[in-house]
């Protein structure tokens, strides 16, 4: 076996440009696949990290009726803040939020929104709620950059906001945007207006009530309270996993095309080799190889493309990966209205498992593609091969 590796290496290096062309194509597959997969992992990390920092902390408690994708359920999703949460809220380990359906009338147009109330003094989440502690004539409000963009709002914009209180009475008041924040978490940006929690509780006649609680590192987390249920971090980020899984499946087609291109080059080389190197094959047999051993030699030779490609990929790929991990990849389009947690610049994350699995997949595919045409050697007549007469 050692001899076969030695010979295969010599043959490959001796083949010169043909080998290096195959190796470069294959190494390109390695680098692109690892980079794209790294980007997906990076996106996963970034999305979860941003969701944690901006929206969900380490987990949430949801009102039993709360369903984020059902706006009609919003008005029933509120209940008094449980006593056991009071201490954690005071300690800054938990943030109560109150949600209600409403509408705004910027520039005379009506727009349905979700009114979100958040304590101005919270520091657990990155939402710049401190801005809500501004004294203005209207209700102070903050919105995300996407919301501001789609509704033509900016800092200082004033408009009427309408809601229905807990008694079912419609009410309205003027709102002033005191800050516009930029976030990658669409769920706290798109179609939402954030106002101070106490103001919202007062206006909606829901004193001391909340819909959702985000918490940080807390020790006691009962799964179910009277009106609220626990949503763990993994439950809340399952959507991100699903979305990335779906994107990854789509990317798999791209990986397959890339690998197919590289494999086509290797398959072609193998088929050509077997026809062009008949005399060499006959010589190996004459010198003491069995035909099966020659099949093995050609298979190793083909598969060694993957080994050389891995080395070449490492030479230019590692600096590229490091540069990308530091500088990130900026999407050439506006991501703010994608409706999902995606940063304009994504930073790939490479794990050992990712690299090893990619190398293994490419190596095994190369091995199969190298073996497939080489099987023909086992049926060759060595005397005819020696004369190069096999068609």
């Amino acid at each position, binding site marked *: 076996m050692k001899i076969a590796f030695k010979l295969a290496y010599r*043959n490959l290096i001796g083949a010169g440009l043909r080998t290096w062309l195959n190796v470069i194509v294959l190494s390109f597959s390695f680098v692109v696949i690892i980079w794209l997969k790294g980007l997906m992992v990076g996106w996963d990390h970034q999305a979860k990290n941003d969701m944690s920092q901006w929206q969900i902390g380490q987990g949430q408690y949801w009102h039993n009726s709360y369903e984020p994708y059902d706006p009609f359920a919003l008005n029933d999703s509120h209940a008094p803040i449980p006593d056991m949460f009071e201490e954690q809220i005071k300690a800054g380990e938990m943030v109560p939020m109150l949600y209600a359906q409403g509408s705004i009338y910027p520039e005379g147009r009506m727009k349905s929104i979700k009114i979100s109330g958040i304590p101005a003094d919270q520091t657990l989440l990155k939402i710049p709620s401190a801005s809500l502690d501004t004294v203005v004539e209207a209700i102070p409000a903050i919105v995300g950059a996407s919301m501001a963009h789609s509704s033509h709002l900016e800092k200082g914009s004033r408009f009427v906001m309408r809601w229905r209180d807990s008694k079912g009475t419609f009410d309205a008041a003027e709102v002033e945007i005191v800050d516009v924040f930029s976030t990658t978490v669409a769920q706290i940006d798109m179609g939402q207006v954030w106002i101070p929690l106490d103001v919202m509780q007062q206006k909606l006649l829901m004193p001391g009530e909340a819909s959702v609680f985000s918490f940080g590192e807390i020790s006691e987390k009962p799964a179910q309270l009277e009106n609220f249920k626990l949503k763990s971090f993994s439950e809340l980020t399952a959507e991100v996993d699903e979305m990335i899984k779906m994107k990854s499946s789509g990317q798999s087609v791209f990986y397959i095309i890339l690998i197919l291109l590289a494999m086509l080059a290797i398959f072609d080389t193998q088929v050509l080799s077997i026809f062009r190197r008949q005399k060499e094959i006959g010589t190996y047999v004459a010198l003491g190889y069995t035909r099966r051993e020659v099949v093995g030699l050609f298979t190793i030779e083909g598969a060694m493309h993957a080994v050389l490609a891995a080395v070449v990929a490492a030479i230019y790929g590692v600096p590229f990966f490091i540069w990308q991990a530091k500088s990130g990849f900026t999407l050439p389009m506006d991501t703010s209205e994608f409706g999902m947690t995606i940063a304009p610049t994504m930073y790939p994350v490479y794990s050992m498992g990712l690299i090893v699995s990619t190398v293994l997949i490419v190596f095994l595919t190369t091995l199969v593609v190298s073996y497939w045409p080489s099987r023909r050697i086992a049926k060759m007549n060595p005397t005819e091969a020696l004369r190069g007469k096999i068609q």
Partner: protein
Amino acid sequence: MGNNHFTALKDVNLTFGKGEFAGLVGPSGSGKTTLLNIIGSLDTPSEGTAVVLGQSISKLNPRQAAKLRKENLGFIFQSYNLLAVHTVFENVEFPLLLLKYSASERKKMVMDALEWVGLTDKVKSKPPQLSGGECQRVAIARAMVKKPTLVLADEPTANLDAANSHKILQTMEKLNNELKTSFVFATHDEKVIKYLKRKIFLLDGKVDHEEWANNKN
């Protein structure tokens, strides 16, 4: 296709002794190469038996046949059949790699073999950089490096000019004398025939007659 059947050899009954310098002589299609391939266990007779170094060729499985070739036989081909991407040293080293000699042993044996054929200054050259005569000398070194019991040479001078042919044949004759290696040639080249100690004339797949250099019939 179909039922086409060609008899390359018929009623051939020959025995070769140790240290012979013999040749199968005849025109194209007389069966010389077929007989050489059978002796070399690259082919098997459809009828009859061929016993090489005590082993019946027909009864050998591919692994055993490969072992016989690897350990006891050396081949020299008309078109040299050198491995083009390997250096002279690597080409000659190849049979020793298969026999699993250590690196130091291989180096010594390869250099000895190249000295026999006068090519020690070409160790790093590759076949495309060599002349036809040099290529064939490398092929001889490759065949001889493991000091085989029998060397089979198929038209070894067919691609060489007269001067190179004589040089090659003198080398082989010297090795035959010094190492007592048996040589069996397949040839129709007069230059080769002159060197043979035993000439077996084949015609249409049959042994026509034999001649011995010392008038032994």
